[in-house]
């Protein structure tokens, strides 16, 4: 077992991953009823990535997320109850119902926002990292982005800038194999996204994104280096999403049984459970208890979200400027 992870940390990691999974499965089911408005992109299957990275971060560190942002939000400490209300378009939501699934943000916990613009987060995280560096407070910034986003100019520019300025920035490419319906084997010109790191003068590592422990270790090293002034790192997580690009996607571009096989053989929660219960350090019952607690919490968040009020008409005109 990894030396940095005591029992408490392991339980925390499991709880975070389970919370993300439960949250996403619940949104998946509720979306099918037609009650949830707009577009939602689910993170189920990728939980180990957000969790293994964000466990190294404090509330003073920043992350920038993507359109598939629920998992990053939860792992960074955004309240799932507020998130659920946001997705349901309620005044009690994280962003008062103004942003929705694609724009959940909570600056108080260092969550700079999900993002509707693919590749939008890279430059922003260079900015938070620049502030960290100028203040000299050892905080860092982490930019999560997808395999599709890895081909966006903003991401290239951001990685170059991060090395040029020697910023405490970490670029986490979550390669789930697809950008919408397009395979990363088509859209990414080199074999691995991590291969691009050398072109930007930073270390690049490839990690099994289903394996929480591998993620935790690689992220720990990169984040430590960044805090110590050693500059940026590119980490490529090889993983998969369990649902469509967005809810409603028929996914005819995928191989039959593709997801089912991954769920049975690679699932991050299953692997984690197997590993931590193998030596008796943690029991299956303890994990079952977490499952039940998380389920109750998510159920409660939905009941509350449904009952909560929508924003009032006057809210349309507020929050555009600080002063005007």
């Amino acid at each position, binding site marked *: 077992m990894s030396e940095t992870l005591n029992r408490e940390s392991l339980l925390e990691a499991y709880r975070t991953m389970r919370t993300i999974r439960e949250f996403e499965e619940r949104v998946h089911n509720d979306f099918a009823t037609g009650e949830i408005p707009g577009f939602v992109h689910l993170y189920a299957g990728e939980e180990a990535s957000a969790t293994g990275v964000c466990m190294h971060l404090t509330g003073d560190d920043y992350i920038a997320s993507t359109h598939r942002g629920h998992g990053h939000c939860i792992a960074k400490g955004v309240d799932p109850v507020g998130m659920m209300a946001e997705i349901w378009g309620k005044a009690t939501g994280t962003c008062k119902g103004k*942003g929705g699934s694609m724009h959940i943000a909570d600056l108080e916990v260092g969550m700079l926002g999900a993002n509707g*613009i693919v590749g939008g987060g890279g430059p922003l995280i260079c900015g938070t990292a620049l502030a960290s560096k100028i203040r000299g407070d050892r905080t860092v910034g982490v930019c999560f982005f997808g395999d599709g986003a890895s081909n966006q100019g903003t991401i290239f520019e951001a990685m170059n800038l991060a090395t040029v300025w020697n910023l405490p920035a970490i670029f986490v490419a979550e390669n789930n194999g697809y*950008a919408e319906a*397009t395979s990363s084997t088509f859209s990414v010109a080199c074999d691995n996204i991590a291969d691009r790191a050398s072109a930007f003068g930073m270390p690049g590592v490839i990690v099994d994104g289903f394996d929480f422990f591998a993620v935790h270790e690689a992220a720990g090293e990169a984040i430590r280096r960044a805090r110590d002034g050693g500059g940026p790192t590119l980490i490529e997580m090889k993983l998969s999403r369990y649902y469509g690009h967005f809810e409603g996607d028929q996914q005819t571009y*995928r191989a039959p049984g593709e997801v089912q096989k991954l769920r049975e053989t690679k699932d991050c929660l299953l692997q984690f459970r197997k590993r931590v219960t193998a030596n008796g350090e943690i029991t299956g019952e303890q994990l079952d208890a977490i499952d039940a607690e998380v389920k109750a919490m998510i159920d409660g968040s939905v009941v509350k979200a449904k009952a909560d009020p929508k924003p009032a008409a006057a809210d349309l005109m507020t929050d555009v400027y600080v002063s005007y």
Partner: protein
Amino acid sequence: MARKITYQQAINEALDQEMARDQTVIVMGEDNAGGAGSPGEDDAWGGVLGVTKGLFHKHPGRVLDTPISESGFIGAAVGAACNGMRPVAELMFVDFMGVCFDQIFNQAAKFKYMFGGKAETPVVIRTMYGAGFRAAAQHSQCLYNIFTHIPGLKVVVPSNPYDAKGLLIQSIRDNDPVIFMEHKVLYTMEGEVPEEVYTVPFGEAAVVREGDDVTIVAIGRMVSFAQEAAASLQKKGIHCEIIDPRTTSPLDEDTILESVENTGRLVVVDESNPRCSMASDIAGLVAQKAFGALKAPIEQVTAPHVPVPFTDALEDLYIPNAAAIEAAVTRVKEYR
């Protein structure tokens, strides 16, 4: 009765017919086929809402999926247009112009002029715009006014399936860069569309409804709302003339001015934010060129000066509607 198809099918048919007619017409964009490199279906999406579905197999080698690199492939479409092709590039949602605008407004738009008239850039950029999908601030804007501001770009904003087909064919045949704006809520709108190939010329507004009391100029999706309002006002004895400019650049000034000369009253309906908008542009035009005819202040019915909100409760308030148009028409009619 003529055949009825949707706005979305009309666009697909225009692309299909022009690709069949002219081998230099190529289509490119994110998932315009869909499924590139994947183990499953290879024409899986046909664009994010299925508009280009089926073209991939009908026109082998001329429907290109792209990485998410808008600056790269929109710019490549511009370059290909300089080298003998007629590319139709899809910028999925117009909000994404932010990551590729240089290739559009500094490059494509200006070649003809900067190069002393020598360059022609027959590129079409198709893009979805508009609110109503609960898609929030980065997937719901209009922004046609920003393109309209730029000399060298032509801007097309079809309000119905017939115009969508005819204007898209015209866009492909036109030798200047064209921004073709598709309102995502209109995709399911049905209308009569001839099977034959036809064009709708640029710079010719449609007089959608005739009337002597008040002129309503409406853009894109707002045309339907204006029709709704006019039908209701008719019952109250107020007769509206509705003008759909169809292209905001070039703008058919004459049709608008002639109508206001007759009615003396103008309401402009524009889904975008009010500052520096088509509404303010057309209001300015009429204030300057038909001042003597005006019997009442010009009314602008637009979205407010805020980003597009997510929740339905706020988005429904954000989008101009028939009731707001009716109220504005009533105000200008009753003005003394």
